[in-house]
């Protein structure tokens, strides 16, 4: 099958009812939030000069929180899209994908990338996994004087596991269940900005491929994020 594309049915199908519901809710929720943002902007434009500093501060909070809500809805939509996406399984040159993503993220210093075996999966989805995991490592190490990110793979019986180890802020293993759940964060925004949706996307993509994602770490001492993909297409 090398080089040949196989039907998307090879990827596990998501829970379509739940997925449709998420899509509908996310889509319909955007409209009222957009309205809040729109009217806040109008209020600021037409009456901003009538407000004192405190009034403008409060208005800015309304706008910022509406924007945040919208971002969360968009993240839900994005997750729902991953489930609905018509994936194509093909052989993937993981080395080139990782180099491409690391380059795109402009990580300094360049991560140490060891030999990575080929995988089978949907290129754009697996690329997204690398993007999230490497971006995560970059943010985790941003306050380090000598940041380090190492990428390698281990061959297991019927799957290949890929690992990204960083010497960043790490996490407490007691909360590891929360890592891959949507909007769950283990750090405050000032230490680790973001909505907490990237690793949820990773988990969803890897599960769709019949694989598994996990992480190990210690607070303040770095973390290793891993995901494994079956060497044969999922049944």
């Amino acid at each position: 099958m090398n080089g040949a594309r196989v039907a998307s049915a090879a990827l596990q199908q998501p829970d379509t009812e739940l997925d449709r519901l998420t899509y509908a809710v996310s889509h319909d929720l955007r409209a009222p939030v957009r309205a809040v943002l729109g009217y806040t902007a109008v209020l600021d434009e037409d009456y901003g000069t009538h407000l004192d500093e405190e009034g403008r501060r409060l208005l800015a909070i309304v706008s910022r929180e509406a924007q945040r809500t919208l971002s969360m809805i968009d993240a839900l939509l994005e997750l729902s899209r991953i489930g609905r996406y018509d994936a194509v399984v093909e052989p993937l040159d993981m080395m080139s994908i990782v180099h491409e993503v690391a380059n795109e993220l402009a990580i300094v210093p360049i991560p140490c990338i060891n030999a990575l075996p080929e995988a089978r999966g949907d290129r754009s989805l697996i690329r997204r996994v690398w993007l999230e995991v490497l971006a995560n490592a970059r943010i985790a190490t941003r306050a380090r004087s000598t940041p380090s990110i190492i990428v390698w793979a281990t061959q297991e019986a019927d799957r290949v596991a890929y690992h990204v180890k960083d010497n960043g802020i790490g996490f407490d293993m007691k909360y590891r269940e929360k890592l891959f759940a949507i909007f769950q964060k283990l750090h405050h925004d000032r230490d680790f900005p973001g909505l907490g949706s990237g690793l949820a996307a990773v988990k969803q993509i890897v599960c769709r491929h019949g694989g598994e994602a996990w992480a190990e770490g210690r607070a303040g001492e770095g973390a290793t994020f891993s995901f494994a993909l079956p060497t044969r297409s999922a049944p």
Partner: protein
Amino acid sequence: MNDYDDVDILLVEDSDSDAEMTQRALKKANIVNRLYWARDGVEALDFIHCRGAFVERDSHHMPKVLLLDLKMPRLDGIDVLRELKSEPETRAIPVVIMTSSNQDRDIEECYRLGVNGYVTKPVQAAAFSEAIASIGLYWLTVNEVQR
């Protein structure tokens, strides 16, 4: 001549806030052409075909552009588009979809049916105003309509 005869923009939108924002943006861009706001697809088709409340409308005057939302009660935007583009007498009316959906299947279906433009409503108020102003300027002043 009645109130509906000199309408240049037919806005088909079920959301009060989006309709208000659209009208505000056009006004801000000094686009003062006559606009009629239809609340759903049924009302829009009644307007175009001079039926129901629009029975006395001059059927020779067509809007210069239809700004059409996709998701609406009763008849939605896709159905309106399909009907307009399948009839020779309404096929030439420019239709621009204004929607919150950027789903590939919606975009593909609209172009398959012959839409003239497809715009995802920008989230930020300033970007929304700009988009509406550009659409208004293009279809009302730059574009030549079929006479």
